[in-house]
């Protein structure tokens, strides 16, 4: 059923090659890691903040996978962050302070909660789903609040004892170990997310984001894919929560709060959604700005963040990465 082409086409091989090579590593992808290492040496007094930033990037990555690639909206991702944090925290406060197994336990617990929640709430979409994600987080928040004898309630979980990493590297008071530990975990999580989004599964997620109706019509098991990515994203959020718990040696109700679910979205939107690197830009920008604003203007710093957001939404749709992309290639297709 050959329809004669408009004119004899050129050899398509180079074009197909570049299409097939989109998963290859680009040298520019080394940039965030170089910046992180440079920051480690340049700002040794700020290692604690930097470690927090790295762990928060893991959290933002988990939201990006869900929102940016699969198009699943969420206002309650702190639910899984908090489950991970409390899991690692409770282990460390009750005699098992080994950090790596604590991380895995956090991931597992958050993944299980994510799977169950996802299987129930992902039947809905849009605003309804948004409300459902909120409800899940609110329920877990109240659960942690009420179970004060286990979680410490509003006072937070006290008495965590985190053992040295690999039995050797103690969490020191300067935060060197915390920084390197978070950086290594971020590297692994980034590799996981990167692999997933470039896989055939990841491409099918973008299909779900772009047109769920058509995904059904080409025979994709859409519901199963959504629950799977929700579970994976929840597990990653759990890792982020466990990281913060272990490096700060404290878990509070704030880990499950609506504020945390909201600010992670803001950070991701600042950086750019669905482009894998939005988290690496938005999280440091927000957290450093917050740190600076708070030291200059301890009372009204939220106002400045708000103003920044308004400007961003008005003039920089798609976040920092969106602006960069528009400057480079005005109307290319999305990846």
């Amino acid at each position, binding site marked *: *059923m050959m*329809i004669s082409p408009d004119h004899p086409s050129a050899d*398509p091989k180079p074009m*197909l090659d570049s299409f097939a090579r989109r998963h290859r590593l680009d040298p520019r992808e080394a940039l965030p890691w170089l910046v992180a290492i440079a920051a480690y040496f340049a700002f040794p007094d700020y290692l604690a903040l930097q470690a927090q930033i790295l762990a928060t990037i893991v959290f933002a990555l988990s939201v990006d996978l869900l929102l940016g690639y699969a198009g699943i909206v969420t206002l309650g991702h702190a639910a899984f962050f908090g489950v991970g944090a409390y899991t690692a925290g409770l282990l460390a406060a009750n005699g098992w302070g080994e950090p790596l197994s604590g991380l895995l336990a956090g991931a597992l617990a958050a993944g299980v909660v994510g799977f169950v929640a996802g299987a129930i709430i992902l039947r809905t979409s849009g605003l309804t789903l948004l409300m459902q994600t909120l409800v899940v987080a609110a329920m877990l928040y109240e659960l942690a609040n009420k179970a004060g004898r286990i979680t410490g309630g509003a006072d937070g979980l006290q008495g965590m004892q985190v053992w040295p990493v690999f039995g050797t590297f103690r969490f020191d008071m300067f935060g060197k170990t915390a920084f390197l530990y978070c950086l290594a975990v971020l590297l692994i999580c980034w590799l996981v997310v990167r*692999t997933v989004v470039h896989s055939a599964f990841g491409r*099918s997620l973008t299909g779900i984001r*772009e*047109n769920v109706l058509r995904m059904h019509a080409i025979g994709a098991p859409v519901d199963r894919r959504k629950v799977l990515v929700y579970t994976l994203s929840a597990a990653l959020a759990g890792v982020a929560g466990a990281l913060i718990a272990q490096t700060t040696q404290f878990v509070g109700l704030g880990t499950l709060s609506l504020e945390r679910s909201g600010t992670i979205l803001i950070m991701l939107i600042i950086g750019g959604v669905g482009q894998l690197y939005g988290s690496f830009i938005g999280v440091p920008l927000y957290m450093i700005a917050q740190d600076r604003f708070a030291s200059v203007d301890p009372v009204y710093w939220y106002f400045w963040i708000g103003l920044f957001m308004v400007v961003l939404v008005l003039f920089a749709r798609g976040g920092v990465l969106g602006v960069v992309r528009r400057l480079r290639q005005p109307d*290319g297709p999305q990846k």
Partner: protein
Amino acid sequence: MTGTIETIKLCKNFGGLVVADAIDFRMEQGARHALIGPNGAGKTTFVNLVTGVVPPTSGGIVLGGEDITTLSQSQRVKRGLVRTFQINALFRRLSVLENVTLAIAEREGIAGNFIRPAGRHRAVIEEAYQLLEQLGLAEEALKSVTDLAYGRQRMTEIAVALGLKPKILLLDEPAAGVPTGDVHTIIEVIERLPSDIAVLLIEHDMDLVFRVARHITVLVRGRVLIEGPPDRIARDPKVREVYLGDRGRL
């Protein structure tokens, strides 16, 4: 036979509104069948029922001897029952090549693989590109769907469906919204479809219908009014009566 589809007393009510009224329909492998009828006759509902988008109120659907009435949409697609949409349902911000690649990846069952890079499934990409070449879309392979002219988007719509290697293809108004001068390319594509595919064409454009179809079913208010070869349909007084109001030139 795998390429035969049949509906038995297929009914669908939305509240008190009967949109499909005991439709008995049969299409053999390799058929070129058209479903016509005035607006609101229930043509698109029929497509939705057959493909599993909406469940029937009663009645059954049989594909190649197997009762598929309760199967999900994706299970039906896996059995070769594929549709296109009256209003383009494409992955708009993705490239044309990516659109077709997604369909082929689903058909090949690799879309659940979350480790191997999509680009390493080279055969899928090559096949998608060949399909685009056959449909004259190769030049636009890397353009995003939003940047295509409407007629080219309609072609992409068909390309995505063909990527699934259908046994039965339901084309829901493939020429809708296409400029008259471009309709011939769509006709050409339909005429050159592999002869073992059964094609059901839902269409308003009578030129297209009479050029392609070898068998026509006329649907009016959810009921089959008449069916038969095109010349008999064209001469039928009942059909003329139904169409005289909005379309006198049958």
